[in-house]
């Protein structure tokens, strides 16, 4: 067990170096929310979302932080692991005296560190340039913490599972990015959620992102803004249930389908 943790820690270090040095992954998984925040925040800066003086940039920041969960975990892993399967990374690791759990710990560590760094930058930009108020109550920060953790865990496990779908490392981003984009459009990231058609709202409610954005709005918007939620409330309990459900489901799925070798090489 000690050895698993020791090597897991080593893996986190090496994963982080590779993540930030790989230009594509650093831009696509890490810098993208910041770029989008600057663009959307500038274009729709003062546009109202239908509650008091809450602006779209504030609404959008919550959506970008929720998206950050998806980018650093699901999108990152579902693109990187098919490449690792193809370029020999996973085969090399299999030949080493390394418990397989250390590899997964390395991925979890990478995801958490990348997310924390990303959120820190997003919040700094939001506070400095878009007039976003950080929550003042410890309760909201607690909510922020558990929502982030559950979101990262569920989407990490789903990323591990989904990594078996792309046939080739090179084409992985073309499969994964549209999925993330569709979820963002339907989950209240790019549009105000209660203005979407109800079939779209229902579709989005199946997946974690809708619940993540909603919970992030609870954290970063004034309390009364629940008035513009579809149900008129923040539904934090339901959010927790959905995320726990996806974490359990993602775990089972990842255990069942994760592969160390490319398809067709028994």
């Amino acid at each position, binding site marked *: 067990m000690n050895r698993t943790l020791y*090597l897991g820690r080593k893996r986190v270090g090496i994963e982080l170096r590779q993540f930030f040095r790989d230009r594509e992954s650093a831009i696509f998984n890490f810098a993208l929310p910041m770029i989008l925040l600057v663009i959307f925040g500038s274009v729709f800066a003062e546009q109202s979302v239908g509650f008091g003086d809450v602006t779209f940039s504030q609404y959008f920041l919550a959506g970008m932080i929720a998206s950050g969960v998806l980018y650093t975990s699901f999108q990152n892993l579902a693109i990187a692991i098919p490449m690792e399967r193809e*370029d020999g990374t996973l085969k*090399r690791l299999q*030949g080493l*005296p390394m418990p397989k759990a250390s590899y997964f710990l390395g991925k979890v560590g990478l995801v958490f560190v990348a997310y924390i760094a990303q959120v820190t930058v997003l919040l700094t930009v939001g506070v400095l340039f878009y007039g976003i108020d950080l929550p003042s109550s410890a309760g909201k920060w607690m909510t922020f913490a558990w929502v982030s953790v559950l979101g990262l865990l569920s989407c990490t496990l789903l990323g591990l599972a989904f990594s078996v779908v792309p046939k080739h490392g090179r084409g992985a981003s073309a499969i994964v990015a549209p999925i993330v984009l569709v979820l963002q459009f339907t989950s209240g990231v790019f549009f105000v959620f209660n203005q979407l058609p109800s079939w779209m709202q229902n579709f989005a409610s199946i997946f974690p992102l809708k619940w993540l954005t909603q919970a992030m709005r609870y954290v970063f918007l004034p309390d009364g803004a629940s008035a513009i939620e579809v149900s008129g409330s923040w539904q934090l309990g339901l959010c927790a249930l959905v995320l726990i459900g996806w974490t359990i489901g993602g775990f089972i799925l990842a255990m069942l389908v994760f592969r160390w070798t490319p398809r067709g090489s028994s």
Partner: protein
Amino acid sequence: MNAISVRGLTKRYGDLVAVNDISFEVGQGECLALLGPNGAGKTTTTEVLEGFRHADSGEVRVLGVDPRHGGLDWKARLGIVLQADRDLGDLTVREAVRHFAAYFPSPRDPEEVIEAVGLGSKAKSRNDRLSGGQRRRLDVALGIIGSPEVLFLDEPTTGFDPAARREFWALIESFKAEGTTILLTTHYLDEAERLADRVAVIAGGRIIACDRPSQLGDRSDGIARVSWIEDGRERQSTTDSPTAYVLALAQRLGGEVPQLSVHRPTLEDTYLALIDDLPGGES
């Protein structure tokens, strides 16, 4: 006890029998080279020994352990150099070698290993900027960092220039001198001749010859081919007593024999003859 022992190993992929009832042994500290055409079953055999693939039948032991059940302690005693990979591109040579040292209970000193494989001046280079030969030497560095008792080398010198290959051979010989058991897969006959104590020729999933490089096939028969020019025509003859033959020839021709050469079959000649003799043109 042998470091590697293989009895009746068979491995199928669907209808294709990749390895067909192969048996061989590699003694402690010995270097065995596996030679054979592409698709002959060399890599499959190696990968079964490394634990990447499971045999359909047969008994395989590496350091006394069935690779199918080889745990982490067993893996810690192996060094594996797979066929060329492109991973670790975003790290430097030094970062990669240091990182891989962490997996092993008693690793070699990373700096010494980097020097030994001749990458001392490249230690701070990103791996994706190394040349083909340098990249391969990094793979070897990662294979030996754990001071393995058994070292698997799968086509280690592909892409090397001749000078780099000779340096590499000297490196492998130093591991042999330390008692490392080596299973070498290669397409280079001179490499096998220089490094291997024994060579096994695999074709069509079977071992068709296994012996010391100097004894393989008909090389031990002492048959030599003598060739010369006589009456403006190229002549040649095969004989098992070339010295006497040349003496007689010199007497008959009255002195210097034009264009005289005495040629003994090289390992390559012998290897190609073995492959050619196969039924059904398996090469």
